[in-house]
């Protein structure tokens, strides 16, 4: 039983990392959103599994949030937005897919090294989970910095946060996980609303159509 738990958790976490790579690979917004939905869904599964494995029923709430909110509501909303803004086709990256992938690989390797240096006293399940979570986080951050488009940056942030939730749930008996996931959901909601309100089409730092560049601090 112990082994099985471990393997399933391991598998799910690994899948999450894989899906992050897939996100990194996408170059169409709509496709990216679908990928993210998948990402969230896998997260939900893994959280649920953790809940079952740790006999921590409250984690099911987190799983539910992940499933309903992140896997369904947010993607739908974002789909709407990009349709409205008519940017559902293009997606401009700063670095091409290849380099991004290579970078991602490097990051995963890095997180593995960093995490597996932790001596085995720590619970192995936790360790592996942490390693994967860290890679997900780093990949999310990578996505945020390699994409110009606001929506894809949000997606990056959300997958980063998925990594956090993975880590939180991976940590046995960690209190407040639910609260934290709720808090994060609020955060993301705010961001999405912000994008919606300010009709951000291009970049985060362009709060209005004509306000692309003029108002960033004092002009030169």
């Amino acid at each position, binding site marked *: 039983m112990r082994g099985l738990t471990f393997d399933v958790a391991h598998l799910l976490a690994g899948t999450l990392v894989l899906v992050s790579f897939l996100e990194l690979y996408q170059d169409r917004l709509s496709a990216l959103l679908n990928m993210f939905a998948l990402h969230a869904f896998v997260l939900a599964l893994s959280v649920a599994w953790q809940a079952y494995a740790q006999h921590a029923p409250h984690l099911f709430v987190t799983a539910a949030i992940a499933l309903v909110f992140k896997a369904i509501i947010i993607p739908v909303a974002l789909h709407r937005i990009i349709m409205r803004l008519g940017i559902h086709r293009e997606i401009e990256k700063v670095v091409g897919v290849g380099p991004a992938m290579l970078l991602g690989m490097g990051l995963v390797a890095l997180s593995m090294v960093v995490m597996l240096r932790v001596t085995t006293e720590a619970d192995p399940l936790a360790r592996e989970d942490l390693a994967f979570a860290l890679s997900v986080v780093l990949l999310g951050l990578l996505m945020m910095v390699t994409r110009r488009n606001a929506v894809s940056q949000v997606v990056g942030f959300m997958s980063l946060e998925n990594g956090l939730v993975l880590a939180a749930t991976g940590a*046995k008996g960690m209190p407040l996980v639910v609260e934290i996931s709720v808090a994060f959901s609020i955060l993301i909601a705010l961001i999405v609303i912000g994008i919606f309100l300010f009709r951000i089409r291009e970049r985060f730092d362009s709060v209005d159509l004509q306000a692309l560049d003029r108002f960033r601090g004092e002009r030169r």
Partner: protein
Amino acid sequence: MSFDPMAAILLIPAAAAGCLALMPGYRLTARLNVLAALATFLTALSLLFSRPQPGPYLQVDDLNIVFIVLTTFIGFTTSVFSASYIGHELDTGRLTPTFLRFYHAMYQVLMFAMNLALVANNIGVMWVAIELATLTTVLMVGIYRTHEALEAAWKYFILGSVGIALALFGTILIYMAATPVIGEGTDAMVWTILTAHASEFEPALLNVAFVFLLLGYGTKVGLAPLHAWLPDAHAEGPTPISAVLSGLLLNVALYALLRFKMLLAANPQALAPGPLMVTTGLVSLVFAAFMLYRRRDIKRMFAYSSIEHMGIIAFAFGMGGPLANFAGLLHMTMHSLTKSAIFFAVGHVAQVKGTQRIADMGGLTETNPVLGWGLVLGVVAIAGLPPLGIFTSEFLVVTSTFARAPWLAVILVFGLLVGLAALFLRLNTIAFGEPRGPTAKAEASYVPMFAHLALVLIAGIYMPPALVLWFQNVAKLLG
């Protein structure tokens, strides 16, 4: 049940926030705001004498009492200032009554969040509180709804969220490190227990955790290169909020960092957090000092000076040792008082001149002598010139460093000198020379500004032994 000050400093702002959200009319709300802040301050003072036992979620010890008293005090003075400031904003129509109501409510929420972050005995609660504080300040920075304001708020929001995410990851790692020793559940997130067992934790895990925490909370502290949100947020938000940001929120984040630093310091195998903080501190100091030169917006300039001083403080704590820690604490206190005083002055200046562009203000000591000399005194203080308090702390930082690591001290002195030169370069245009810009009389209460400056002056000349003893204990605590 009996009166519990620890809960009170949380409940009063929360309750006040509730009422303020509902009540119309700015005079009344402003008064109530002041009143609530005063009440919070007094309760915090009472904490000095009767210190309750630490619970699973809340605690008060030597370290955070310093921060609590400081926070509540500046919160109070700032509310007094904002009462006179907001009135003017309302007259000029930059704010509408609805927003004003919102503003006061948010102010109290912010107070609540900061107090919570300070008294939290639980790393999770602390994290939540700091996130809450961030969100509130984001909303308040954007309150003017101008493009620049929204811009700044948005930037702050995004960078802040990323920072928070990183901090959370660090927190989780700490928990992971704690579980093998303490066991699962809430206990593994309680400061008092954590610090007690820190020595047995997994060092490698602690190291990773600290990296994330440094970057996460460091973003809040505004250490370079994570500082990007800070100048704009200060420049575009309402001045009272700039004062609170510089004077308090940065401290709160710093407090969180200090806590975790203590955790690491308690563990012999973990890598020493000192060098990391020293490096980031020096980088921030020198970087901010150079950035001061090209500033044209007065509030943004002083925001950069905040980065500079945060760098000094981080440096001092990074150096460690009783003397440097003492200096760091003193410097933090003095900087909070001085910088908020400066922002009070700057707020009135901006209202008198109707702009924040340095180029459009001049000869202030001619047109508004009291305000002008107040600003000059503030700048003199922030530049670290005696006999004001910041000189004392800088004296300690530099001398104690120079005896241990001369080159660091040389860099430090270089940064200080460059920053000082920049500050006075601008001060010359603002306070002296031919008067420029409108010269209306400022209808303002100078009480908070001069109260702060007086405190700083006194601290520079005479520090009551009790205070010193207290600070020294804390310094020992920080190791």
